């Protein structure tokens, strides 16, 4: 019963928080409306998202977000440096393939998004069976190092959160 009413409890929670941030005040009226939205929207979208993602370790999300934010700031400086000071002829752009061990679609989506937001890498595609990602590197003298870093830094952590 409860599971039918709230097919995605995390989505409900996220929608409630989003709505309260959006109206920028914590009043009873907006909280009730947030709860209404948080109930209806997951119900309507449930057919497109049949499985409930399992968060095995929700507390690790905070650490992950902090690491990604730090990497985004770092990657801004790196990319700015490349744009400003490296001649185009010295750029070593490459495509690399990263085999992924993550199996849930939510985890793969988060990994792909993270890769796009962080140093000089961009997710372009996934293989048809969902077992590897296609990454474009802006400047990668050593493609293997990039792959190992992504696997160790992000995928291992996501593995702990999701699977």
């Amino acid at each position, binding site marked *: 019963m409860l599971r039918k009413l709230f097919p995605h409890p995390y989505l409900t929670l996220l929608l409630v928080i989003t709505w309260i941030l959006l109206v920028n005040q914590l009043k009873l009226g907006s909280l009730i409306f947030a709860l209404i939205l948080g109930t209806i929207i997951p119900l309507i979208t449930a057919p497109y998202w049949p499985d409930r993602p399992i968060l095995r370790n929700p507390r690790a999300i905070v650490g992950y977000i902090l690491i990604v934010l730090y990497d985004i700031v770092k990657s801004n400086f790196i990319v700015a440096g490349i744009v*400003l000071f490296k001649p185009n002829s010295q750029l070593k752009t490459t495509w690399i393939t990263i085999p992924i061990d993550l199996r849930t679609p939510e985890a793969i989506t988060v990994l792909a998004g993270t890769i796009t937001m962080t140093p000089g890498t*961009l*997710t372009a595609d996934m293989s048809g069976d969902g077992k590897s990602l*296609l990454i474009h590197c802006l400047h990668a003298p050593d493609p293997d190092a990039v792959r190992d870093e992504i696997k160790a830094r992000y995928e291992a952590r996501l593995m702990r959160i999701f699977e």
Partner: protein
Amino acid sequence: MELIAETIISLLLVAAGVFGLVGSFGLLKLPDTMTRLHAPTKATSLGVGGVLIASMLYFWIFQGKLSWHELLITMFLFLTAPITANLIAKAHMHRYSKQIKLPDTGTDSGWATFEDETTEVHPVMTRTRAAPAPTKADH
């Protein structure tokens, strides 16, 4: 105290402006579509982020109220930027599919965008059902 706050906010705004400029310059300078994608997805995220932090600080210190809209903007930005980049990259891969040399997937199937329309692309979407073969009844 006010002077310090004003200095911090101004510094943040100037830094954000510089990063925005670098991102736009990257669009001009980098050689092709794929490399150009890197500049706006990254260099500008700190540009926008700086403005948002400055705005939060300003409203907090000088207006006395905490504004949460900036957090939302950041969240939406981080959600949409990778998706936009991904779609542009895929469009580019299709348009120049003959020139671009893509690496091997390392698995049995090819890259998802180039798979045959009739091929079942597995987003490994299902844990509960055994095979992710959507029938008409699912839609």
